[in-house]
């Protein structure tokens, strides 16, 4: 049997190679994609069905729970008018830039906190305190300090994401089995090469969790900033779209906005973090199948 697999398996590639149990690797590619896509799609379909039923039962008046179709019409209108591209582009590119900036600041910060007791005691609690400040609280100050422009928005995003990423990295580093840095030291790791070759990769699985939370923070902060600051200079992002719906008390627009923001969240998770996570965990033999 395994001999047979040797032939068949060779055409398979990608991250799934190790994931699928030996016997199922004989299924077609289409089948495997289906197996992977079905659960999330099923969950979404179920949700929409419940929503439709709730709505049809007129359990709540229309202005509390819009018809799925009305929300869909909103979205469809954005799609046909092409506006949806601007919405996504404005928000996503900002979020990505903000997140990248946050990474640049947060990684050295997290390393410093995790590795030095003085820094940990001095700055650690302040970072956690910063993390607990809602983004909305910063928006007015940011507008005051930077004016109504992208700088204000990035400031809000940074304040949201940096502490979260730094904390995530810190907690990842804290969990590194102490034997690994010791081994590193014995193998000749200096301070920097120890971080580069031992600590960072060792902390990666935990850090990934922190990154995910950091991304959530930066995306949420961005949405909050966009929700509060509206100006043609800032372009029209998803947050502004949602804000307009709220201002007009238009519940179907509000739902459409929430849905679009949600779709971006799910998309980033599925396209970026899930594959990353899977490959990191799999390389270390930490897959779900293992237990």
């Amino acid at each position, binding site marked *: 049997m395994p001999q047979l697999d040797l032939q068949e398996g060779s055409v398979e590639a990608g991250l799934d*190679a190790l994931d699928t149990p030996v016997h199922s690797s004989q299924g077609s590619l289409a089948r495997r994609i289906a197996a992977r896509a079905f659960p999330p799609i099923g969950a979404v379909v179920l949700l929409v069905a419940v929503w439709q039923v709730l709505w049809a039962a007129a359990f709540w008046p229309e202005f509390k729970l819009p018809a799925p179709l009305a929300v869909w019409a909103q979205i469809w209108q954005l799609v046909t008018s092409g506006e949806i591209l601007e919405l996504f582009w404005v928000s996503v590119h900002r979020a990505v830039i903000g997140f990248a900036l946050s990474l640049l600041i947060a990684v050295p910060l997290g390393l410093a906190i995790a590795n030095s007791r003085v820094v940990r005691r001095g700055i650690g609690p302040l970072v956690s305190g910063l993390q607990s400040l809602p983004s909305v609280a910063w928006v007015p100050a940011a507008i005051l300090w930077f004016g109504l422009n992208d700088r204000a928005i990035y400031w809000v995003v940074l304040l949201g994401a940096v502490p979260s990423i730094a904390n995530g990295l810190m907690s990842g580093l804290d969990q590194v089995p102490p034997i690994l840095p010791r081994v590193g030291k014995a193998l000749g790791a200096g301070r920097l090469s120890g971080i580069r070759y031992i600590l960072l990769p060792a902390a990666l699985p935990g850090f990934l969790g922190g990154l995910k939370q950091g991304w959530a923070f930066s995306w949420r902060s961005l949405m909050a900033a966009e929700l509060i600051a509206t100006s043609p200079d800032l372009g029209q992002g998803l947050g502004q779209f949602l804000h307009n719906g709220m201002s007009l008390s238009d519940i179907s627009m509000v739902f459409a906005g929430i849905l679009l923001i949600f779709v971006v969240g799910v998309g980033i998770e599925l396209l970026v973090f899930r594959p990353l996570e899977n490959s990191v965990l799999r390389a270390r033999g930490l897959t779900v199948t293992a237990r």
Partner: protein
Amino acid sequence: MTATVEADRAVVDSVSPVRFHQVGKAFGSGRSAVVALEGVDLEVAAGEFVCLLGASGCGKTTLLNLVAGLDQPTSGRIELSSSRPAVVFQEAALMPWLTAAGNVELPLRMAGVPKARRRAKAAELLELVRLGGLGDKRPHELSGGMRQRVALARALASTTDNTGSGAGKPSLLLMDEPFSALDAITRDVLQGELLRIWRATGTAILFVTHDVREAVRLGQRVVLLSSRPGRVVRQWDVDQLPEAEAVDEINTELRRVISSHAAA
């Protein structure tokens, strides 16, 4: 070549606790698949003490994992009629958040043993592995050999539950190089304790070791595995043979098997 079970020991049952039928195990799939075991036929009789020998990486741990139900074979069939086997893993794998005593108590806790009895049992088992008084140490505060002994005590604790679904079934103890990190004297003592426990409880034991002398001294039967893929090459009823002769014979055969593999 089947072992004869001695009549004078307390044998619970005559059903074999475990029986392998042409068992194979491959890891991964495709070009990179590793065939760890192939066509393994093996039976451990109730109350029997079987030692498993083989080159490093030949599949001994894999075989034990299959018996313990921690992995599924990719071909063949395993018949397990014992109660849940107790396992001493090759790595100590202690729970880092529990003290030594906590680790030993863990299987008792999960079996619902009341606190006082758990405590007493754990203290007794730690004493047995010569770690009396170190129950409150954390795994990272113990030396390698101490950790191995805690793991041993823990496995012994997990055999004591014979009240649940496993009651009446023959019991089975799987040990993966349990004494490898111990000094000669401690090892002697623990070998003696193991034999005493084996005689007293009538449990069957499947024991992996690299020490041929140890295998011959402890086991009734010695099973030699080849590597890539792991197959049963030969078995000896060492009870029947004088110790020195057995050790020599097995050593020669082991050398032959391993070097033939290395040459291939």
